[in-house]
């Protein structure tokens, strides 16, 4: 029990250090603020949203532009509060995006490492599956699958994961093929480490920068894809998502009536989420892969230098006898003195 608590404490400390590292980047700061804002909004949606976003019975509030009562206005056909819809839509978009992203990272890295390290039949099997998946056009397949399996929220996530892991597995596999031949992996093999140990302890951490990057990127990508799917009317019909808001704005005639707030709000939501995740992904990749040199930090260090201190350091390096003594004399005046010293 005590050991467990120690482990938890260490994890918390590690997480704190990671956050501090992210915070040290300008981009990381932006990403962290955006993403945590979204997460908070998603968690506390019922407390933040001023109205019931599902309430379509408000006949009196149809098509209002942004005002103090309705921060982002209302819809034209049903009179729903757009700000409340946006807040609730965060839940769906974030959940679909992050869950799929994490699942893709998990499945992709696992299969990628297995294919790369185990090789042979396993490699062949996994890679042929990848090949087949990669040549199937995604969107038609998604349309077919949603129609067959239903448009439940979790089914949509499942479809995204099933189609999304292939690219990552491919990339990870080629990295593993390189790592497999490094001396430390060979040393682990010689020391009698099991395959599982080598894969999880020695190879997987080496691919972490790729995995982290891909998680962030695919999360962002899937948020966009989900919006696209909902826009086409293939999303979960019972949940409010940003894509569905856009679809309703389209069918409800937002453009026709000039209700710009109806289109702008979900668009902005998608933009912010994707942008935030991208920033966070970039910074996390840099942290996971220290070899990616941050030239910006070197320039920052250079700007912070005190030039008089540097000059003082340079001066301190002089041989004291050299100061004020003409060059010709300190060489001792023997040999090699051809031409240049005279």
């Amino acid at each position: 029990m005590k050991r467990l608590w120690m482990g938890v404490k260490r994890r918390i400390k590690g997480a704190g250090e990671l956050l501090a590292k992210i915070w040290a980047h300008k981009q990381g700061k932006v990403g962290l603020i955006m993403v945590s804002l979204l997460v908070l909004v998603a968690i506390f949606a019922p407390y933040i949203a001023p109205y019931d976003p599902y309430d379509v019975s408000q006949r009196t509030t149809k098509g209002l532009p942004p005002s103090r009562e309705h921060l982002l206005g209302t819809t034209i056909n049903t009179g729903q509060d757009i700000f409340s819809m946006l807040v609730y839509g965060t839940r769906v978009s974030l959940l679909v995006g992050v869950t799929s992203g994490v699942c893709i990272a998990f499945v992709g890295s696992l299969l990628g490492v297995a294919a790369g390290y185990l090789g042979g039949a396993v490699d062949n099997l996994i890679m042929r599956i990848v090949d087949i998946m990669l040549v199937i056009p995604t969107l038609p397949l998604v349309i077919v699958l949603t129609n067959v399996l239903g448009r439940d929220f979790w089914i949509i996530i499942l479809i995204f994961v099933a189609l999304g892991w292939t690219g990552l597995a491919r990339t990870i596999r080629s990295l593993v093929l390189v790592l497999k031949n490094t001396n430390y992996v060979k040393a682990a093999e010689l020391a009698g480490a099991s395959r599982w140990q080598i894969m999880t302890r020695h190879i997987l951490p080496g691919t972490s920068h790729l995995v982290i990057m891909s998680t962030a990127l695919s999360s962002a990508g899937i948020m966009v894809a989900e919006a696209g799917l909902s826009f086409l009317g293939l999303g979960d019909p019972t949940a409010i998502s940003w894509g569905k808001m856009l679809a309703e704005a389209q069918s409800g005639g937002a453009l026709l009536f000039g209700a710009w707030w109806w289109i702008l709000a979900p668009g902005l939501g998608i933009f912010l989420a994707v942008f935030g995740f991208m920033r966070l992904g970039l910074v996390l990749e840099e942290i996971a892969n220290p070899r990616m040199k941050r030239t910006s930090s070197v320039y920052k260090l250079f700007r912070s230098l005190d030039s008089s201190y540097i000059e003082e350091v340079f001066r301190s390096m002089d041989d004291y006898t050299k100061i004020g003594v003409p060059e010709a004399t300190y060489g001792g005046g023997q040999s090699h003195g051809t031409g240049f010293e005279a």
Partner: protein
Amino acid sequence: MGEGRVMEQVLKLRNLKVVFPTDYGLIRAVEGVDLDIYHRECVALVGESGSGKSVTSQAVMRLLDSPPALIRVDTLEFAGQDLTQLTEQQMQEIRGKEMAMIFQDAMTSLNPVMTVGKQIDEVYRRHYGDSKQAAREKTVKNLELIGIPEPKERANAFPHQLSGGMRQRVLLAMAFACMPKLIIADEPTTALDVTIQAQVLKTLRGMQRGCGTSLLLVTHDLSVVASTADRVYVMYAGKIVEKAPVKDLFTAPHHPYTVGLMAAVPKLSDEKKKFTQIPGTVPSPIDKPSGCYFHPRCTYATERCRREMPRLTPMGPDREVRCFHPLSVGRNGHD
């Protein structure tokens, strides 16, 4: 070193200082180094890891980027040309053509997906504008000169198809391609085993004499120095501590550090079971000791050594030493 007197000076470096600002403090890599290299001369720059010898050689080539490096130099003249005034483009004309570099690791210095012949061809095509055929002819001749059997066939080989010694020879061929005035060899034989090392050094020395180039040999291996160099600079913690013709240095080393280095070379005739070593370690480049940088490891250190840094003092013909208490002085200069 009689010929040096009448020969032109190829490299003149005065007061080179390089520091690297880091998050942990200033790294004082090079602290006021002077170097002279004359025509057809082989000069060795000797020192431990972290003594600043590689940084010095890279600064001479102007290969150090700023940032991360902060560089000050009073004079950097190459064949009468002031290198500090040249643009990066002019510098690129000089690199490879008049000044070439040989790196330690032949495997990583060569492009693994290009045949070695093609990589040498590039030098001719870049600097002389040769046609493919003309460049290849020169390449084959060059490879033959450097002692590679069946040069025509070898030119079509990829780096991984050659042995370590052959790869190093290919690098030599590349460096000598344009008959440069100066070649900087940064630990050229460290990655090779001793027998191959001797062959490569012999080739290097032979080519250098034959082509009339000067050589700056950066190394930590005293046996390499003894067999190849004409003059030696010994570096410690960013400063030159001793400068001498190779014969004088080995017969009568003046600086306690040089003496320690030589004592550390294991000899076949030694009766002792244990290796001699210099006590302590190289000082951290961020936090160097007061006074003489060597004093914490020096058995002869006095109060004065702890307080002030000795200057580089002339000690007879063509010799300088940075020490208040130079050793074996009486025997110097008689040979």
